[in-house]
């Protein structure tokens, strides 16, 4: 990354939980950015972190009154729309974590305000687009070597998690939805990243195991006007942290498996490239030679933040992870939630099993 001679953009972070801490590190590493303030309702979260060198704010409104140029909104879903809207009103560029609010109304609210400030940039945190396996797959597909995409399968899931039952993510009034909105949204965004918009969306949602207000499993089916089909299983009961995106094309297949992450719990990130065999080849069909690429470094967070800074510095239109992308993915989720009422885990109840 080049050292910039221009004035640094002043940054504020609202929300200092898991994502806020990640953003702080990435912002501090970026030569174009200067972190000047962090705000969290729980001040102790910030003051107990000895690495924090900037000013601590108790209220995000006070942070907005400072001379920050851009705000990173890293709060629970319920709070994001209001903070985004007020930041835009205060003439600040805004980067908001996914999901973009709890529902369609939330993202519509943010877009409405965005339209009033054409010079400001609004971007959402769909960092999976910048994972090395995804970028490599995207480049490969765009080279046209394997022809058109036929269909995609995605599996993204976890094993509940620490304090899963107590987490705000499972309180419907705060989160807006369950595992599909929290984690599955990344895979839906990737489906759009590869295939564009989907006009049909169906889904089965279930509360199979966890006793929460929201779904712990979502099985989703999408189809677009080209006839490309995508299926997603988003789950909080996979027990083994799993990320797998399979892309089948006319000339072969690509599989992104594992995700480089802080804990490494999703396994090593790999891209498998399999070239379709043809009838006249001498070796056995159905078991093609594969090439597997292993990736060592996750630059997704820094590429994403670098891109956001670039949009602002060069006054470019946000063309990746934009509010339009956020809107489109929320429309899909809205269709799926409307398509299927969440089924309670009545089967287990009848068997008298104790849910945790």
């Amino acid at each position: 990354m080049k050292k910039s001679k221009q004035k640094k953009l002043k940054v504020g972070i609202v929300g200092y939980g898991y994502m806020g801490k990640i953003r702080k590190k990435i912002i501090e590493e970026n030569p174009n950015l200067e972190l000047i303030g962090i705000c969290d309702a729980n001040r102790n979260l910030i003051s107990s972190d000895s690495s924090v060198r900037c000013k601590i704010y108790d209220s995000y409104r006070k942070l907005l009154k400072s001379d920050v140029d851009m705000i990173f909104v890293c709060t629970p879903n319920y709070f994001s729309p209001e903070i985004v809207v007020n930041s835009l009103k205060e003439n600040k560029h805004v980067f908001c974590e996914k999901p973009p609010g709890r529902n369609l109304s939330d993202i519509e609210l943010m877009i409405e305000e965005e339209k009033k400030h054409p010079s400001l940039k609004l971007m959402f945190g769909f960092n999976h687009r910048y994972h090395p396996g995804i970028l490599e797959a995207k480049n490969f597909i765009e080279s046209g070597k394997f022809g058109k995409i036929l269909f995609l399968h995605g599996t993204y899931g976890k094993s509940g998690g620490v304090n899963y039952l107590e987490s705000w993510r499972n309180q419907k009034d705060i989160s807006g939805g369950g595992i599909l909105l929290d984690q599955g949204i990344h895979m839906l965004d990737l489906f759009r990243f590869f295939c564009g918009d989907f006009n049909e969306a169906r889904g089965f949602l279930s509360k199979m195991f966890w006793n929460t207000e929201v779904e712990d499993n979502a099985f989703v089916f999408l189809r677009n006007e080209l006839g490309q089909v995508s299926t997603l299983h988003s789950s909080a009961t996979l027990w083994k942290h799993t990320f797998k995106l399979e892309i089948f094309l006319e000339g072969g297949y690509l599989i992104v498996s594992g995700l480089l992450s802080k804990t490494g719990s999703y396994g090593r990130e790999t891209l498998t490239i399999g070239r379709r065999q043809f009838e006249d080849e001498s070796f056995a069909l159905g078991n093609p030679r594969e090439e597997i690429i292993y990736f060592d470094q996750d630059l997704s967070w820094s590429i994403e933040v670098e891109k956001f800074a670039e949009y602002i510095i060069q006054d470019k239109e946000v063309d990746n992870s934009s509010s339009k992308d956020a809107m489109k993915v929320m429309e899909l989720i809205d269709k799926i939630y409307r398509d299927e009422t969440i089924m309670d885990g009545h089967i287990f109840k009848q068997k008298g099993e104790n849910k945790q």
Partner: protein
Amino acid sequence: MKNVVFSDVGREVEFKPDSIYENYLKLTESDIKKEFRNKKNLSLSNCPACKSLKNTKAFVKFSLQYVECQNCGTVYVCPHPGDDQIKEHFLNSPSIHFWRDTLSKVTEHKRKEKIYGPRFDWIIDMADEYLSGTKNMGDFNSKDVGYIEELLRNNYFDTKTIVNPYFDINDIKAKNLKSNLSIVSDLETAFPNKNSINIATAFEVIDYTSNVEKLMNTIKNMLCKGGLCFITTISISGFDMQVLWENSRSIFPLDRINVLSQKGIKLLSKRHGFEMLEYSTPGILDLDIVEHELKNHPDLNIPRFVKTILERNDEKLNYDFQNFLQVNRLSSFVRIVLKKK
């Protein structure tokens, strides 16, 4: 940084048919002993990878001394032959004539399928990803006429420059394949052509290059910013090299006077200011090479554990073991992609 793994199988004998390869080694031994009878024609050198002067004697092959660098573990011939001596050997020695007239012809088909084809796929995939516009490539220090012929048939590159060839260029001219081709006879002449290429290739070239420093400097100077350098080589850190050591049939002068370690390769690229985009060891032959040596020399002293694996005679186990070597960058066949910053 990427690490690419291939699910493929291979047999050493497909590339080195036993009796023919043995003949080649015997002829090479005879040539080297004659060519370097007078050791005063050799000069002391530091490590080709990390430049350290500290080394210890490793073994002697065909009368030449191999040493092991105490800093990075690279194994290399010291005292070292000069570039002119190496070129003379690869142009005119009886062993090289045998290679070109006999050995390369027998293995030509396999080399095209398993080596040259994947090599071009690799370059094109990476160039498509990282480069835009015209593709101007330079190949450095090659002695492999078969590969150069395939390169000249390839239409992907807009211009091709053959730098410092270690073969008779009349062999190429006779085939009338020289579209968009320039030939630069040595590194000194090539060096001033700053920013003239955006793809550099050096396939199994570091292995026999007398002055690796000069080679890397020339590549770096000729590459434009963001340009890519593709290198393949054999590494002493790889499985069959570590197990067989001086008994490896792949280590002998002059074909392999520099056998760099993994650490050495990384230090070399870092010292020359390159960003390493890929370090892979997609070799498919390590275990087969050891098995083959053990069959031919049952008294060979190799680790018991390796013997145990081989005695199982289990194709699946062998495949999984070779796959393990690739995934963990422990095969001796190395391929790297460097990007000029």
